[in-house]
């Protein structure tokens, strides 16, 4: 989540072995998020992290790390800022792409972004998302919001199989993946794993804790 400590945290995540870092731009009503990310968004908003501050934060992060940075946010921020203007300014601030959690593939088709597909998505929608996505496809492993789950979702394997049959682009799996074991299991299926809530919890313990957490995930994927 964007904030004063985020540049240092991003550097720690990179040192730990992250290949790409999502930066949350907080929204007041994040429908796709469970309690950990929702609370992080509340704290960020209380600290004044509005769109302009988030973009400046992104620039500061980009000065410290070399891996791709991807803002993850909600449609209302783009609606207020201007869809195209947001995309241009985010790229200018160092974003390699963009994730909008509540913007399905058929909405705002001209806005280039990483598309999400879910276990409930039809093959037709997966094909459209594959065609329109920017670089890689985000596989939502569960029907649910972000946050840790006890087990890796059994819905991931069939979702990967269906998606693989339709596209060759890289598939990164996220939502509900919190432990090195789950990450390893997900990586058997997909090309990459996205860890959000668990990384935020580690980051609350400081940059060192986040770096160790990411290193454990990285080791499990080796």
């Amino acid at each position, binding site marked *: 989540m964007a904030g004063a400590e985020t540049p240092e945290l991003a550097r720690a995540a990179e040192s730990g072995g992250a290949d790409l870092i999502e930066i949350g731009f907080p*929204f*007041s*009503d994040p*429908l*796709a998020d*469970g309690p950990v990310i*929702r*609370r992080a968004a*509340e704290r960020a*908003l209380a600290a004044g992290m*509005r*769109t*302009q501050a988030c973009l400046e934060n992104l620039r500061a992060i980009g000065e410290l790390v070399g891996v791709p940075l991807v803002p993850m946010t*909600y*449609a*209302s*921020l*783009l*609606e*207020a*800022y201007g869809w195209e203007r947001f995309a241009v300014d985010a790229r200018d601030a160092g974003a390699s792409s963009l994730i909008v*959690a*509540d*913007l*399905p*593939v058929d*909405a705002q088709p001209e806005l280039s972004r990483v*598309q*999400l*597909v*879910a*276990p*409930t*998505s*039809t093959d037709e*929608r997966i094909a459209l*998302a594959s065609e329109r996505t920017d670089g890689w496809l985000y596989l*939502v492993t*569960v*029907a*649910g*919001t972000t946050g840790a789950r006890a087990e890796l979702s059994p819905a991931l394997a069939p979702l990967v199989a269906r998606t693989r049959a339709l596209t060759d682009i890289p598939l990164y799996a996220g939502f509900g993946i919190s432990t090195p074991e789950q990450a390893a299991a997900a990586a058997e299926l997909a090309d990459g794993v996205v860890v959000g809530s668990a990384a935020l919890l580690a980051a609350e313990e400081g940059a060192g804790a986040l770096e160790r957490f990411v290193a454990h995930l990285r080791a499990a994927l080796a």
Partner: protein
Amino acid sequence: MTTSTYGEYGGRYVPETLIPALDELDRGWEEACADPSFREELERLGARYVGRPSPLYETERFAPFGRRIVLKREDLNHTGAHKINNALGQILLASRLGKGRIVAETGAGQHGVATATVCARFGLECVVYMGAEDMRRQHPNVERMRLLGAEVQAVEFGTKTLKEATSEAIRDWIANVETTYYLIGSCVGPAPYPSIVRELQAVIGREARYQMLETYDRLPDAVVACVGGGSNAIGLFAGFLDDAGVRLVGVEAAGAASLGSGRPAVLHGARSSVLADGDGQVLDAHSISAGLDYPGVGPEHAALRDSGRAEYVTATDEEAVAAFHRLAETEGILPALEPAHALARALDLDAELILVGLSGRGDKDLAEVLQI
């Protein structure tokens, strides 16, 4: 095809997980509308279970000199508000779709009670999300829902009111979308919900128009209804939209004027006029009336405002409470605090024959009113 946008408002701004469920809902609704047995069942239950048609009643002592104020008595429906019209229609739809579990949000508790009621009637599991602050100020409705067999989930974060309860109901739906039907309470949310709720509430306006012609041999000069999410207003307005001579007046709570003070933003799956800051962050609404305490509004109202077909004004907490007392003392009717906002503006509206949507009864508000 169900209406998905109203001018530049509406749409579907939800996580991908929900899109197939919304498509299923869209198809199910179209099939239901095309099926005479669905209409017949809805009308039969409306008459025998809800008590429709609700009467028109012309106030004797409430209206100021020189004006006639006629009430459309949705407060006399079973469960005491217009919410049952929508809950009944959607529960029939949920049954057609084969869903055994219902989730809903509630603010004042009227939609929660209506949902718990129809779930009891149809034997479906019912979970209602309600802000902790609303559970305090609308406590009788919490007890009613529990007596009806519903599970009431307190929402303890953020504003602890309808906005957060709606977000939590949608999150529950995302997590249980295969088995669960989301029974939304107002003409808000992602398409096709706004048009489904509007069609189910349009019975208010259809009846009222017929009753006006039957009783007065003319249409009202103005139709006035309170607007939170806007379902009772859109249902009442629906009967008069094509009557250019009839003024349509929506009354928002002064501290929750999504149409009066809002800007285009995305909330709960739709683009509409929302109380939001310049960055698209949704602001807190404030109203004594839990049912109007919501920073968003149905997209069709935003379009009606822009087109000028309807006008939207506000009433303060104090004005609503004064109208509440006045109706109680002059007519022997305790209105809910929500339609008390509409009553307050009807009192000073420059029109001769005024139809007001009395959307619910005030029993639930006694504690709040007596506190003042």
